[in-house]
């Protein structure tokens, strides 16, 4: 393993120190438990939007803390969901009478730890709700699995609920919006290489030179299916079909297309894939009205991409366009 790190056990905290120094104008970092908070938190009268999860998916979540998006991010150890006391610290630092919404990606660990935190907060008399995002179509959604994973849709959900909270929506309204978004966002990912978790020191899985993992998650869990590498045209079509046919998205739909790098895939490939996805959606009569392209929810240095489609309407489009001012996502601010 070659990484720019010192002791693997200190990676997250040391990284947060650099993040705090780089973005002191936007965030404040608390340590032990580690929490990244909006510099001006708590914002009186505003619903707090809080998310978190294992580290290693940056810029998710810390890079999205700031006006128009998250009030706090709770980074766990690499690929390990944070503990309830850390979530609790984020709630305490950001939550006013307006309450808070916890955005939880659907992983057993995240759900259990955030659930516990929500119980603790309720015991303190705060109105804290949580929603679980599970947009990954690669996983069979059945009572016989842990359910679908939360992946790319999380980024969009954080932006949209952040915008709703910023314009003064109530917790009821923000929660309802979150459930609506979760209902109409779908994703799929693919990995060309494996990430290496610092304390493990070796790649999470191994792939032959001509193999890729189709339906990969964001934690180095092996994907659902191992397939041969294929040209981008075929690969993107395979990915898009999985997403489009799941909801399903249909001719005439207006969508946001989010083409995400898993970290190690460079922009030249990412934009190439994005271009193909745009063309294929146009062929299906689905109108791409908004797009996001970049490494926004990653898996350390893993090479791969994910595609996320969100069905848009006027309300979601307006919330998407609303100002956002964070380390990683910024417009009209």
């Amino acid at each position: 393993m070659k990484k720019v790190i010192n002791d693997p056990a200190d990676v997250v905290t040391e990284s947060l120190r650099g993040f705090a120094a780089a973005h002191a104008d936007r965030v404040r970092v608390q340590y032990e438990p580690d929490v990244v908070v909006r510099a001006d938190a708590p914002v009186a009268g505003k619903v707090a939007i809080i998310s978190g999860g294992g580290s290693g998916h940056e810029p998710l979540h810390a890079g999205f803390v700031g006006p128009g998006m998250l009030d706090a991010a709770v980074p766990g150890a690499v690929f390990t969901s944070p503990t309830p006391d850390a979530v609790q610290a984020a709630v305490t630092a950001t939550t006013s009478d307006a309450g808070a919404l916890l955005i939880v990606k659907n992983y057993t660990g995240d759900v259990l730890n955030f659930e516990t935190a929500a119980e603790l907060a309720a015991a303190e008399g705060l109105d804290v709700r949580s929603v679980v995002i599970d947009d990954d179509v690669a996983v069979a959604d059945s009572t016989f699995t842990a359910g679908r994973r939360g992946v790319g849709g999380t980024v969009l959900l954080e932006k949209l609920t952040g915008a709703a909270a910023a314009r003064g929506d109530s917790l009821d309204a923000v929660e309802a919006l979150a459930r609506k978004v979760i209902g109409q966002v779908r994703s799929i990912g693919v990995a060309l290489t494996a990430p290496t978790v610092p304390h493990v020191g070796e790649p999470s899985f191994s792939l032959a030179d001509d193999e890729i993992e189709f339906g990969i998650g964001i934690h180095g869990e092996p994907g659902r299916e191992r397939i041969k590498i294929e040209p981008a045209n075929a690969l993107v079509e395979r990915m898009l079909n999985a997403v489009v046919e799941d909801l399903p998205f249909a001719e005439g739909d207006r969508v946001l297309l989010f083409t995400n790098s898993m970290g190690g895939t460079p922009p030249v490939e990412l934009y190439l894939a994005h271009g193909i996805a745009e063309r294929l959606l146009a062929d299906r009569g689905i109108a791409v009205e908004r797009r996001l392209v970049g490494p926004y929810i990653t898996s350390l240095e893993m090479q791969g991409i994910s595609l996320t489609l969100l069905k848009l309407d006027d309300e979601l489009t307006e919330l998407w366009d609303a100002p956002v001012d964070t380390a990683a996502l910024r417009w009209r601010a």
Partner: protein
Amino acid sequence: MSCTANGVAAALRAAAKVVAEHRAELVELDRAIGDGDHGENLNRGFAAIVASLDAAVPDTPGAVLKLAATTLISKVGGAAGPLYGTAFLRASTAVGNASELDAAAVVAGLRAALEGVQARGKAVEGDKTMVDALLPAVAAAEKGTDVASVLQAAAEAAARGAESTVDLVARKGRASYLGERSAGHLDPGARSTSLLLGAFAEAAR
């Protein structure tokens, strides 16, 4: 060993040692069908328990178990943190504030632990989780006559239970994403449950 506060503390220290020794193995097992952090996470949690015990050992077995529970909850994270945390918390409640535990109390603690894990994680037998080690362990423990034989029986059953997970297809936790591909691998959580009970049994001898 007598099952006093100090005895439970000693058992937890023994468990911490075993977890540290098997850290890499648990990482490896989790890497195959999960995300490779199980050994690291448990090791962080048990090291923190030892640090707390070094500072001060609480008065009763129940209080020691509660310290373990809160430490695991606040240090481990992931799925195993709240699950093991809940297990120790429920065990702590079950044994009350007796100053020494007898065989029946240990069995009650184990049963409460199992119920806690199942309440939180909703896993049933055969889902390829730590439940597959803990459930037979509780059943076997009921046949023990003293603390040592209770824990010995539990440990042996947990080891067999853990082994049984190899053939299973995961239906809970991260390994479930793999579907059929999860078969053929030992479940890391079942393995760690077996290791912990083994360490407790050893300490009780």
